[in-house]
């Protein structure tokens, strides 16, 4: 036990020495948490503490030891009053719970939302393909439209639809190709994509 704590102390000393040397020109290399993107020492204030600690342990075990050894935990309570500590803890727990709920909801939403690929007839035998609903999968319309244009060598733009939302209009009948692209490149499950056809004279033609 004692050996362990002294090792941690030595590591902390080394870190301090490194910080002193940082006064010269060399920039400090800072590790950022892969989960919440903050420097790891601030993970504890975020809503994903559990995930952050796991990530740190597997990616930067030494840092993890520095930050989360029992000695470190004790010393960092520092000057805060007991009352303030309790309040902070309570708030944090609440925040974490909220975050968990939010993530669950998001996952559920992702599962249930659908991307619609619509083939729309322009003139006889000419089509455009309209893609909508990709925002639920954290994709940005503008960039995806550009990618489509590049990939399929055709006109591709973001347009506003009647409901006020956005959609991508790709010139040409490309619904199958787009489906494939969405699955391969953007990793969207095929179950979440629906292909629809829309003829101009709905009902009237048939």
């Amino acid at each position, binding site marked *: 036990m004692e050996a362990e704590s002294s090792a941690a102390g030595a590591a902390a000393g080394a870190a301090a020495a490194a910080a002193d040397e940082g006064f010269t020109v060399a*920039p400090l290399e800072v590790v950022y948490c892969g989960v919440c*993107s903050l*420097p790891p*020492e601030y993970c504890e*204030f975020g809503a994903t503490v559990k995930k952050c600690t796991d990530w740190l342990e597997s990616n930067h075990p030494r840092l993890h030891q520095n930050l989360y050894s029992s000695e470190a935990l004790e*010393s960092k*309570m520092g*000057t805060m009053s007991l009352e303030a500590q309790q309040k*902070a803890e309570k708030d944090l727990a609440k925040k974490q719970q909220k975050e968990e709920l939010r993530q669950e909801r998001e996952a559920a939403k992702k599962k249930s939302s659908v991307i619609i690929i619509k083939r729309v007839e322009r003139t006889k035998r000419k089509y455009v393909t309209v893609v909508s609903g990709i925002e639920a999968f954290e994709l940005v319309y503008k960039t995806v439209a550009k990618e489509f244009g590049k990939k399929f060598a055709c006109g591709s733009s973001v347009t506003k639809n009647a409901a006020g939302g956005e959609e991508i209009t790709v010139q040409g009948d490309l619904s199958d190709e787009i489906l494939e692209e969405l699955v391969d490149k953007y990793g969207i499950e095929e179950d979440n994509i629906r292909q629809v056809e829309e003829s101009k004279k709905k009902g009237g033609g048939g």
Partner: protein
Amino acid sequence: MFKKPVSSSGKTKIKSSVQRNIRQKICEQFPLLEPVIDDVLPKKAQLDLIKAPEKISLYALDNQVLFFQHHNDAIMPHLRVVHKYPQCFPTVQVDRGAIRFILGGAQLMCPGLTSPGAKLPPPEGNLPEGTVVAINAEGKEHACMIGVLKMSTEDIKKLNKGNGVENCHYLGDGLWKMDSE
């Protein structure tokens, strides 16, 4: 300033003459940064200007925001820059209790700067009102906030009441997240 996610409306390249101006301004504002300015902002590099809402301009290099500025106010560094060159910016320290409020985007109140865990520069190193400061936290190695002093550090010690530092950029805000994506 960046409580909401930043929605940028495209970026443009900055003219080299304007770039020189910015560089000079940064050097004036942060004299400590001058020795390393070539590493932060290489002379030949092409800076990009990203316009954000509410007259905020972001100065980016290789898609990474390095500095930002509101209208014509003081230029402020991105926290990543401060993390890399912590000694190059004037710094104050807050106590542990204040951290969670800062990360929530709150303004920094004086008591958080004067309590036992906090650190202000000594009287001879008084920082005047309006200085851009990096905010460190008790027991932490890296800064967690960039702010503008609402009153001089001596006044903070004297008055010990009210808003001490305006929170301009903090860990986990819109600007921070914009970059890490």
